[in-house]
């Protein structure tokens, strides 16, 4: 059922024998673009909240905003993304609009996970580094972040897993159709992802082999989350072990 042809060819509109190539590509492309936006902002905010923020009105406002954003249902966020990117900026259904909205969806989770991971780092490490004459910036980059790495990787895989499986946000922003070219890097191309394709095939089973495509797409979805998690966490673990020294 899942073979090379299925993974690399385009879907067919009405006939049997279609593949999921562009959708598979779009899933990873959108994930990558959304991480490019949400990781610097989300992890940056998490680091700020854990290391630098003094209790006060501003900190409270940021925390409240983060929590509010976290509670927005993804389909509502999808509608917001549509109003902003599809309508206001007149982009239409695009990879870019989908990735940006997805980034917004993942932002609060990233902030929270980063903040938690950094708060787990014992204060004794910070004091130790400061007492050796480290600048506050060196304390963060050389002591705190490396020590928090396992937590940060967990956060990243959580976010990525959710992004790869997300549909509601993407239906309204990236759309259900994919580019006619395979591996289309144009961010303004249609951004139908695998999860959305699964939903679309299921809700409007036009092709005769819809059941085959649904089952195949579902299996591939699971496998690609697994694949992505391994691809991120294995190198991170190896790096962390090497850095911390042999036990």
């Amino acid at each position, binding site marked *: 059922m899942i073979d090379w042809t299925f993974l690399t060819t385009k879907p067919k509109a009405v006939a049997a024998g279609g593949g999921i190539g562009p959708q598979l590509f779009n899933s990873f492309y959108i994930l990558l673009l959304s991480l490019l936006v949400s990781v610097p902002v989300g992890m940056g905010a998490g680091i700020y909240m854990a290391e630098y923020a003094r209790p006060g009105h501003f900190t409270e406002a940021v925390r409240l905003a983060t929590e509010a954003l976290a509670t927005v249902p993804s389909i509502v966020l999808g509608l917001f993304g549509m109003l902003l990117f599809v309508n206001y900026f007149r982009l239409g259904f695009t990879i870019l609009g989908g990735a940006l909205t997805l980034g917004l969806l993942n932002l609060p989770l990233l902030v929270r996970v980063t903040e938690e991971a950094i708060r787990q780092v014992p204060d004794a490490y910070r004091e130790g580094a400061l*007492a*050796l004459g480290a600048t506050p910036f060196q304390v963060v980059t050389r002591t705190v972040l490396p020590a928090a790495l396992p937590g940060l990787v967990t956060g990243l895989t959580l976010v990525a897993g959710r992004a790869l499986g997300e549909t509601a946000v993407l239906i309204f922003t990236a759309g259900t159709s994919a580019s006619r070219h395979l591996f289309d890097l144009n961010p303004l191309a249609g951004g139908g992802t695998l999860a959305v394709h699964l939903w679309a095939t299921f809700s409007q089973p036009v092709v005769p082999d819809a059941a085959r495509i649904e089952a195949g797409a579902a299996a591939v979805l699971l496998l690609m989350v697994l694949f992505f998690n391994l691809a991120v966490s294995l190198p991170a673990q190896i790096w962390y072990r090497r850095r911390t020294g042999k036990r």
Partner: protein
Amino acid sequence: MSATNALETPTFLVQKLDAYYGSLHALRGVSLSLERRAVTALIGPSGCGKSTFLRSLNRMNDRVEGFRLTGRVSLDGQDIYAPGTDVVHLRKRVGMVFQRPNPFPLSIFDNVAFGPRIHGTSDRGRLRELVEHSLRGAGLWEEVKGRLNASALGLSGGQQQRLCIARTLAVEPEVLLMDEPASALDPASTARVEDLVGELRSRYTIVIVTHNLQQAARVSQHTGFFLSGELVEFGPTDRMFTAPQDKRTEDYITGRFG
């Protein structure tokens, strides 16, 4: 500064130091001078201000929310609380060893090389030299020379504390502040750390906070007794323990309170 001059002037001169945590008055009018290349022990019951005093010498208290300080603390004649003071440079000159051993989750080598690296040493050969020299200085080299790449967290508590001392020495400080460095260690490790303090005395100005009066008597040349934020008595260690001038000092060292 010439060598003779350096020997005559005290390393630290503290004048009328008052410190506060919010509304808590933690140090009250403390004045003392710390002799160069000697060990000064600070004793007193818990909460008496001795750790606050110690942490005022490398401005570690700056981290504490609501900490304030008045008076003058000068290192080689320079007020370390003057505006524009380079705190990072100050902490490089004034190293600190903490109560609980706090090695970084890194290899033994990288722990010792941490300080030199953040101060710009990247030459592998130079780092190796510094690491060996510092580990020897801390009396740990023979025990770990075969496993420098092993995790520092796999060492025993006493070894970890000597690693932390080596890590501090690698930055080539002038002063060593030790905040109850042996209180979390077993008796054998404690003895090793005390011997080490005795050896380091010839090269560094050492200030050691301790709860252990015998330890203070063994390792130090000068002792200061703190009580409720005041420096009750300060003088040569042998005099403090044989003929204390203040009734409160006498009560404390004879074990009548504290």
